[in-house]
């Protein structure tokens, strides 16, 4: 199909053929001008995007696969690098069984002697050292998703469907953590649930405070975007009891909201740093908190590899979110 602009272009071209003497260049230039402005605008924003987001990613990606030799002297951060990794080793040895611990000292010494310029050594290293924290982070994200789905659907339903005393207050309370600094949330949690310090449960609490508002918003937005109260009334007039309404009407119509909400929860929980950093101890360290450690203690290559691992997990999730979000609009027809 031709867009209206194509049509104009064709018309202008036809006019050009018909009246070569009548200064055809003018209409042609007129149709071209907005396009070139558009191009300039696109180019500028692409450049900006490149510098702001893509460039650091590329640098990280490059760094994560290069050996120390390529980076040259001085790229190895601080003289304490070997020491730190060794002391981390000891720390691990204390908390875990000696058999399971990895001889990181050997690892670290090995790093200097890798031949060639491309290596996956850093990824192995991150996996060995921070694998546990990644595992914890993924677990927290999955548990957060499950709890958010249950609370978000039930709570969102209640908020949209019923009017009750204190409803507005509840809605505000749910959004409140988003406007609080992570440190405030962390301190409040530690004060309140001090017993849980050192357990992953307290970090889960923190993550729920930050993720639930998003699931809730996703669900209530969808519920409000179609007259879902009437849909339910229609279903019950046709003989559907509460469970059948949940199964055939509510959940199918909320499917995309739940998927999009879950991916948001996943991305936020996995990347949450502020609260997790304050809540974490060596026994419940999350991956972002470990990333911080690696930035301060390890070489550039190690933190690059850690960042890249992070990206490999988060970017597909975000892409899925975008895909599903677009599909939702097409299926329901934008309500």
């Amino acid at each position, binding site marked *: 199909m031709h867009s209206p602009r194509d049509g104009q272009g064709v018309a202008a071209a036809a006019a050009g053929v018909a009246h070569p003497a009548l200064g055809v260049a003018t209409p042609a230039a007129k149709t071209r001008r907005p396009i070139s402005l558009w191009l300039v605008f696109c180019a500028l924003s692409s450049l900006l995007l490149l510098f702001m987001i893509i460039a650091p990613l590329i640098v990280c990606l490059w760094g994560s696969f290069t050996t120390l030799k390529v980076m040259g002297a001085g790229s190895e951060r601080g003289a304490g690098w070997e020491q730190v990794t060794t002391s981390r080793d000891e720390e691990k040895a204390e908390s875990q069984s000696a058999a399971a611990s990895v001889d990181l000292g050997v690892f670290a010494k090995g790093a200097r002697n890798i031949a060639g310029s491309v290596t996956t050594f850093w990824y192995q290293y991150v996996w060995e050292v921070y694998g546990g924290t990644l595992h914890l982070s993924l677990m927290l994200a999955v548990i957060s998703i499950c709890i958010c789905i249950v609370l978000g659907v039930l709570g969102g339903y209640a908020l949209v469907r019923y009017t009750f005393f204190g409803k507005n207050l509840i809605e505000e309370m749910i959004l409140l953590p988003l406007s609080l600094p992570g440190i405030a949330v962390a301190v409040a949690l530690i004060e309140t649930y001090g017993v849980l310090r050192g357990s992953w449960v307290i970090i889960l609490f923190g993550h729920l405070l930050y993720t639930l508002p998003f699931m809730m918003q996703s669900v209530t937005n969808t519920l409000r975007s179609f*007259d879902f109260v009437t849909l339910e*009334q229609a*279903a019950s007039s*046709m003989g559907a009891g509460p469970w059948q309404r949940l199964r055939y*009407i509510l959940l199918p*119509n909320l499917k995309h909201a739940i998927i999009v909400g879950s991916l948001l929860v996943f991305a936020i929980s996995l990347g949450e740093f502020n609260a997790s950093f304050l809540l974490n101890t060596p026994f419940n360290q999350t991956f972002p908190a470990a990333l911080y450690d690696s930035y301060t203690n390890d070489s550039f290559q190690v933190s690059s590899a850690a960042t890249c691992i992070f990206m490999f997990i988060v970017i597909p999730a975000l892409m899925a979110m975008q895909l599903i979000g677009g599909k939702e609009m097409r299926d329901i*027809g934008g309500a």
Partner: protein
Amino acid sequence: MSYEIRLHDLSKIYPDGTVALGGVSFICPRSACTTLVGPSGSGKTTILKIISGLLDASGGTVSFDDRVMTHLPPEKRNIGMVFQSYALFPNMTVLENVEFGLLVRKVSAADRRRRALEALESVQIAPLAQRRIRQLSGGQQQRVALARAIVFQPDILLLDEPLSALDAKIRQELRGELAASLRQFKITAVYVTHDQEEAMALGDQVVVMDHGKIMQIGTPFEVYARPANEFVARFIGTANLYDVEIQRSANAHFHIRLGFSEVSVAEDTFRQRWPGVAGGSAQLMCRPQDVSIAELSNAHARIRISSLLFLGDRIRITGETENGKTMRFEAHNTTKISVGDVVPIRLDLDCIHIIPVAD
């Protein structure tokens, strides 16, 4: 099986204190269509929702024949309902929408499909079975909503302004189809509308409502030709209403003084037509088509014409009586008159109606 719906003394006060219904009782006869008509906010939807069980009444009872339904949830009432917004399920195709009532009744898949297709056939949209809801026009959605409501053979069919979301032309078309369908289904139906023409066209019985109260119940002819009060006279169709003084004269006639004219009706006829009216103050109603331009010799009044509206087949004339009252009437489209003319008119005494003054 179809039932008679009996509503007894229904009242509804919403939590915010709005009195939506103040003691409403009537019976919707078996296998007939009852239309509920009234201005927006008169409580029609509220009644429909109470019949369906979607809303609890504050007082009163709903029964289908002798079965009291008042506290049964909607899914246990075996009703079909067509919503103003249609409320079709966006997550399902047309066919799945129509199958839904059968699905929740645990009808086998093959039966479901057959019966749903039959229902779609009966509203002439079987070819659209696989479409999604958003791919349908308003009129098509209306048909799906109807098919969906009747496919499981409900005892009662409730329709809430099913045509009001459509544009005028399609509304006219579908009104006729809907009337035919309702007759064919032979189901007890309650049809809510704010459009008085629709109410008369579709209803075997018309219930006129205002402010949560019933103003009149009757056949379409009764509410149109013999309105019980001024509200009904003004709401149903167009009416000329005049305050009149009625006096019985010596020669067995009732004299009706309009202020700009006087007409008389034989006593027998008067008593038979308006048994509730004794004499004294009342209101006289005449419809525009009951007034015609006449010879001066047998005219009832002279009207000065203030505006003319050409309607195609006829002209709608608005004029003023000698004492400044407005009169609307009609004339054939070939009538030669213009604004400012004074024309003699005559009332059709067989069609006028006397409304007793409310006390």
